């Protein structure tokens, strides 16, 4: 296949992952002969994927939790598939290059003006695979539910994406993948291969001797015959799965790592005919049978929304200055316009600047499947050909004549129109109307979490991409800075929110003062029903407030106080207002107010943090997942400020009526400790929480 006199050397970078793989005997070096720019791009990609795969292997070997192992195995599978695809692409390019050289020599130039249709974006979203559990499944009481971890691998051309992993058991009626996957460069003849991989989620992975044996058996067998076949001849696209006990056909010889392994459960191929702007059902081909550990009773179909946006619909095909004349009108009146061909119309603007300025075009000429365009006879005087565009508007034929500035322009425009029509004929129903593709919102990088070790935690934080939590995090950090710089009463815009809250806080307090009430009532009102609750300050403030509380008790409440949260049940704590600040306080239910009243605390209000001037040198960095525990306190409203004992009602009223006067309410260490406890218990490292 290769010319004998080729002396080019392979230029695989030394020390690169690719070189290592070659050394390991996985790839033949000869594959990398004669590198060019394209090839080096692919090599870079292969390199990257190999590194990712090695990383995934290491992670798999190192992780202990099942979810982590499953995620790592999924990454491994994806990387392997990508490597295979890139390898075969590289192979094809090599062959094409060689063929080119051969054909050039034989001067057998093929048809040079093969028109190629434009590419487009193809998006698949809202994948749903229904399951069909048998009745017996529901009555099986074999202890734990039989669970499988599943994900989908989607491949189009050279792009391979995977969906998130979903754990499936008999409580689910469908497997739903909420990801939207967009393939950027798809040709109209695309083949989108959807593969569903599943892995039983109950095996003991660490002691897997059988899986390892299987893996090595697979790797050796694939490495010889099947592997070569795959590498040399495989097009990224539909391929018959190798019936090898249900093993994945795209599985590269992986370094055998003990851990969960995914198997191909079902697959299907989608193409242009399946594209539609709404949901459709497609058939799935199921591989594997009931005996397999990774088996799931699939109904046999898959629903999804497959949309395509060809570039001819979204991009400008051609633009330029024209003179347009409508036939039937005054032959002298031709309008000078700046025309843009895009989608199914030719937009004619008065000036070129209008296009960027998003001003409405002067008029629009339809260019769709019904349009007829032809070049008119050469005008003997000016020697310029005109282009006639005819459309049927409700039975009437309307023709526009376009005159360009030069012959070359005419040729250009005609060429563009031909290409446009060709594209529309190739993309068929996608060119009727522009299909909407919802781009997945960009994932915000997870804020640097100080102690997050678990991959699973990181995954969830990323995907929640909740603006308000990010904002809260930022606010929390700013709070910290404020505290540390002991800047009093700096009111940034967001502080005013807090101020409002504190202003209204006293009211519920006062409401209770009208008469002595039994303890229980106040406790009941700990979380009053809807609107009467004081709007609470989010999260952060409570943390700062905690620290400011502790300023009198530095020694007793060290940095770790922010871990402490009381049980919500015990959170009838009330921080009474400090003498000089508008911060009502909450007191612990168990606090003995009489004993603590004397000690003037520096204000531990839930509602106003920055007012306090605590030099919080002890303020430990707030845990980033501040969303969870931070505003626990906020739900403990000042309602209970009236709190507990009627004996304190008078002082309470003082405190609440005019917080500025302040009441000598103290923050018992009890509340702090219980606060700490709850916050520790709500630590997302121990127990995952998500903001919705």
């Amino acid at each position, binding site marked *: 296949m290769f010319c004998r006199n080729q002396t080019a050397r392979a230029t695989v970078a030394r020390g690169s992952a690719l070189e290592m793989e070659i050394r390991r005997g996985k790839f033949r070096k000869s594959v990398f002969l004669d590198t060019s720019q394209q090839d080096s791009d692919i090599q870079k990609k292969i390199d990257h994927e190999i590194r990712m795969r090695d990383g995934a292997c290491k992670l798999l070997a190192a992780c202990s939790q099942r979810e982590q192992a499953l995620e790592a195995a999924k990454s491994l599978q994806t990387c392997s598939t990508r490597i295979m695809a890139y390898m075969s692409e590289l192979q094809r390019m090599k062959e094409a290059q060689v063929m080119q050289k051969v054909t050039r020599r034989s001067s057998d130039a093929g048809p040079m003006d093969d028109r190629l249709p434009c590419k487009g974006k193809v998006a698949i979203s809202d994948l749903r695979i229904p399951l069909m559990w048998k009745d017996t499944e529901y009555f099986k009481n074999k202890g734990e539910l039989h669970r499988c971890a599943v994900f989908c691998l989607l491949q189009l051309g050279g792009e391979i994406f995977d969906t998130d992993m979903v754990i499936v058991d008999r409580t689910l009626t469908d497997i739903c993948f909420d990801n939207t996957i967009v393939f950027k460069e798809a040709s109209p003849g695309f083949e989108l291969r959807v593969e569903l991989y599943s892995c039983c989620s109950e095996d003991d992975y660490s002691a897997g001797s059988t899986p390892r044996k299987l893996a090595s058996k697979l790797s050796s067998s694939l490495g010889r015959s099947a592997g070569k076949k795959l590498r040399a001849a495989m097009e990224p696209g539909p391929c018959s799965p190798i019936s090898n006990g249900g093993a994945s056909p795209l599985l590269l010889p992986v370094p055998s790592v003990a851990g969960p392994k995914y198997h191909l459960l079902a697959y299907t191929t989608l193409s242009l005919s399946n594209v539609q702007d709404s949901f459709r059902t497609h058939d799935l081909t199921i591989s594997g049978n009931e005996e397999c550990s990774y088996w799931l009773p699939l109904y046999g179909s898959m629903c999804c929304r497959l949309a395509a946006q060809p570039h001819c619909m979204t991009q400008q095909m051609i633009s330029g200055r024209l003179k347009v004349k409508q036939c039937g009108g005054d032959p002298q009146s031709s309008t000078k316009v700046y025309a843009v061909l895009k989608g199914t119309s030719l937009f004619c603007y008065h000036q070129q600047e209008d296009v960027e300025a998003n001003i409405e075009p002067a008029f629009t000429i339809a260019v769709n499947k019904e349009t007829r365009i032809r070049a008119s006879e050469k005008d003997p005087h000016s020697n310029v050909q005109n282009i006639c565009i005819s459309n049927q508007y409700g039975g009437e034929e309307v023709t526009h004549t376009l005159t360009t500035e030069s012959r070359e322009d005419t040729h250009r425009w005609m060429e563009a129109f031909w290409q446009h029509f060709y594209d529309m004929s190739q993309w068929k129903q996608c060119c009727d109307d522009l299909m909407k593709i919802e781009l997945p919102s960009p994932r915000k990088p997870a804020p640097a979490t100080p102690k997050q070790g678990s991959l699973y935690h990181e995954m969830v934080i990323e995907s929640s991409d909740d603006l308000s939590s990010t904002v809260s995090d930022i606010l929390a950090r700013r709070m910290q800075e404020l505290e540390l710089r002991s800047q009093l009463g700096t009111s940034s815009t967001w502080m005013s929110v807090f101020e409002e809250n504190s202003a209204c806080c006293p009211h519920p307090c006062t*409401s209770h003062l009208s008469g002595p009430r039994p303890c229980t*009532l106040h406790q009941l009102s700990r979380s009053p029903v809807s609107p*009467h609750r004081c709007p609470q300050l989010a999260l952060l403030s409570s943390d700062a407030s905690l620290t400011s509380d502790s300023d009198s008790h530095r020694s007793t409440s060290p940095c770790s106080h922010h871990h402490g949260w009381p049980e*919500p049940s015990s959170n*009838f704590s009330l921080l009474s207002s400090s003498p000089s600040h508008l911060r009502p306080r909450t007191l612990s239910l168990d606090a*003995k107010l009489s004993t603590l009243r004397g000690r003037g605390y520096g204000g531990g209000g839930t509602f106003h943090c920055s007012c306090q001037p605590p030099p919080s040198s002890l303020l430990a960095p707030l845990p980033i997942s501040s969303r969870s525990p931070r505003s626990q306190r906020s739900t403990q409203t000042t309602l209970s400020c009236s709190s507990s004992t009627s004996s304190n009602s008078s002082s309470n009223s003082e405190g609440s009526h005019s917080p500025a006067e302040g009441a000598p309410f103290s923050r018992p260490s009890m509340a702090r400790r219980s606060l700490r406890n709850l916050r520790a218990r709500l630590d997302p490292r121990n*127990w995952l929480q998500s903001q919705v």
Partner: protein
Amino acid sequence: MTPLPSSPHLCFSFHSPVFLVPACLLLKMPVHCQRIEIQKLQQGDNLILGFSIGGGIDQDPGQNPFSEDKTDKGIYVTRITPGGPADVAGLMMGDKIMQVNGWDMTMVTHDRARKRLTKKNEGVVRLLVTRKSLEEVVKQSMNKYPRQ
């Protein structure tokens, strides 16, 4: 002259909800079932509800500070954003979410629960929640934190 008693006036409005709760207690109902309808709020590109959840069949139920039964793998409300849609609708911290728009939430993974609440095409979520009676909650706290 209309008396301007700030406190009694507010007392009146603020007390009504409070009075409802003790009635529930009097009936000695161990749990308080409630239907809560939350209108999602548009915040930039997102529709938010304004609360946080914890729990799920893939989580460790022993870590749940709100559940009575420490093998309960249900979905609990762990935080309410003050003034947010959930707050306005009356959702409370510690509530256990049983259903969302008719979908069961007692046997779902954490991520499925989160996704069930954050469907982009839904502007309203109707939750069925259960709430521990406050008496029990008080009792628990008393037991855990004995007076010094």
